């Protein structure tokens, strides 16, 4: 009975591992692994159910080895979530530089405090126009230059629109950083000194822990999306300025209200940042009209460091 239970557990573990996206591994592959390990096999056999419904007997040690191989979700992360095209809409009228999105992102992705996957810019487009706060996550472009220039395929675009980085593949050449026109990527110049929990499974969808000498960037919290949850920054925004949604369903939500994406774009004159570069971002902006907060309120309560960074704010060409 005890034996039976153990084999039951092993089976579940095995199937779970298959289920995490390695369905492609054939029975032959499993058998081959078993064959290789025949010499030091324990002799204990377990029954496994294949995708085709066949029941096979495999050596118990083989299962352990296979589990080790599937411990990382690097391959499964390359598959997008089916029938989705994720988009983000940022309502600039609601952003007050509360910086909660940055904090939630850094906590969730084990980032050092000076790494910001979502950044808050103070932007003034021209001399006589009003300044506003601009949250900038990765734009997950549909024509991503970072993906084109990567020499080893460490950064890739999925069919659900998300651009990810495999930090176990990245060689750290930084070409993607010069390729990205939005400065959305950051490099780990030193050891981040972050310890992952012991049972941590590496998954580019979460992309933790940070690795020295590799490039990181916003991942649209692809791990949360798998569980039908909103990205961390969207959940954290106290103003509800960040909306996340799906172009296929034509719906976006900030966790409080759910809107039709197309209607919102139409009514509020949505646009994309630096459209003329032809990168086709997946992040849309709603212009800062009828603002809920004035620009100055975004400077209140900032730490000295953060105040420092916005000191020279102004239109970049205003002084000429």
């Amino acid at each position: 009975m005890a034996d039976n239970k153990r084999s039951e557990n092993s089976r579940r573990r095995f199937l779970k591992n298959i289920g995490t996206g390695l369905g492609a591994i054939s029975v032959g592959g499993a058998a081959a692994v078993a064959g290789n390990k025949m010499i030091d096999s324990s002799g204990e056999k377990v029954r496994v159910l294949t995708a085709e419904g066949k029941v096979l007997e495999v050596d118990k040690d083989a299962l352990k080895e296979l589990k080790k191989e599937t411990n990382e979700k690097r391959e499964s992360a390359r598959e997008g979530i089916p029938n989705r095209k994720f988009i983000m809409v940022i309502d600039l009228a609601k952003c007050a530089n509360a910086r909660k999105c940055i904090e939630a992102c850094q906590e969730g992705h084990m980032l050092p405090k000076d790494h910001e996957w979502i950044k808050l810019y103070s932007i003034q487009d021209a001399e006589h126009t009003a300044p506003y706060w601009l949250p900038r996550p990765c734009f997950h472009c549909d024509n991503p230059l970072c993906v084109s220039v990567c020499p080893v395929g460490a950064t890739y675009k999925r069919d659900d629109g998300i651009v990810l980085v495999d930090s176990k593949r990245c060689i750290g050449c930084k070409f993607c950083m010069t390729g990205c026109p939005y400065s959305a990527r950051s490099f780990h110049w030193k050891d981040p000194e972050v310890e992952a929990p012991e049972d941590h499974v590496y998954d580019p969808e979460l992309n933790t822990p940070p690795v020295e000498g590799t490039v990181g960037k916003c991942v649209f919290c692809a791990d949360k999306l798998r569980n039908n949850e909103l990205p961390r920054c969207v959940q954290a925004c106290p103003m509800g300025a960040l909306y996340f949604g799906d172009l296929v369903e034509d719906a976006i939500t900030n966790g409080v209200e759910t809107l039709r994406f197309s209607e919102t774009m139409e009514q509020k004159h949505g646009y994309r940042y630096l459209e003329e570069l032809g990168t086709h971002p997946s992040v849309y902006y709603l212009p800062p009209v009828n603002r809920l907060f004035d620009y100055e309120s975004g400077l209140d309560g900032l730490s000295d460091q953060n105040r420092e960074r916005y000191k020279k704010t102004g239109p970049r060409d205003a002084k000429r």
Partner: protein
Amino acid sequence: MVRITKKNLVKELTTEIISTSRNWYLLFGVFVLVWAIGIYALIQQIDKGHIVTGMRDNVVWGVYIVNFIFFMGLSYAGALISGVLHLFKSPWRAPVIRFAELITVISLCIGPFFIFFCIGRLDRLPFLFAFPRIQSPITWDVIAIITDLFGCFIFLYLSLIEDFAMLRDTTDISIKPWKKKLYRILALGYVGTKKQHRLLSRAKNVMAAMIIAIAIIVYSVLAWIFGVTLQPGWHSTIFGPYFVIAAVFSGTGLLIIIMQLFRKIYKLEKYITRKHFVNVGVLLLIIAAFYGYFTFSDYLTKWYGSVKMDKILIDKLFEDYYLMFIFANYLGILIPLIIVGIRKFRTIRNIVIAAVIALLGLWFNRYIIVVPTLETPFLPVQDYRMDFIKYSPTWVEWSLTAAGVAIFGIFMMLVSKIAPLVSISEMEVSEEVQDQ
């Protein structure tokens, strides 16, 4: 005019192979020391991370990539001088052709190391071959540089075979037995039969044509690493040919400097004369004119229009980088033009000075192509960390730069112990040498 005879030729051009002076050891020691400091800096960088360099999230490539482009450009000395002069059978090429070929191969070996220094995970370098993506200009570069390196090495070797055979057979000078043995292997059984001679010269012609083509491809690909991005200042259609011309410019400049250095150190005054300096100098003049024209038209079009990012960049060049811009793009081009262009300024010393200025100017030209653009991203740099706003290279980067120069010297000096720096076989057939 000093008479050069065949017998003297072998004797005088092989003095370095036969004996080694104390000064040689001294200079070699200095180079090794500089190189060792560079290695220490590299160990620091690998140990502590790229934080020890001045590179940060905006300026992700700094002096390293400038050196990379620069050294790759120097390799043009060989592609142009040796390739073109060989194909057109210029009568005066004999004493300078070997220098040009050596500069090519050595700088081609050094250049790629500077891009390795930019790479965060050197342990993953094999991924470039394990998971290559042909869409990436870096992959183009890997293919092009490897091809160029092989091509130039073969060309250099082909031109050395006759000299190796001569050194193997000669009885005029005493060569250490181990070197004799080495020459026997390296000469590949060449004894100078008609057939061998014909095959060798045909191979040399083919390789000369090929390395010209490959070199143009290599340097264009290198330029496209910048050109394909959207960054202001880089996203330019002119970059391919502009970089090629700049590379020839630096290669020619270095050739003049190396000619003068080895002429003094190895006492080759008899072989390398003012005529050679003037001839290479005129080449420098022509290329400087082209290079100046490309530079002018690149900046003129950026400045005249009013694209916001271009304007911000140009303003930065004329404010933060004013002196560098003047030196690189005015003095670096005009001084060579004036010195070589006006006949009475054409002394050996002046031409060498012009070459030094041209070379330094070109290095700074590369610097102001790379760094100011990276300091001017589309979204303004808003950071409280000063080093993230303004790039300044650290001692690590300078040490490795110096180490690059040192290793160039080390290679050059080592080669001079094995192979004649002035091609004996080329000299023999050149018209200045008399039989008696």
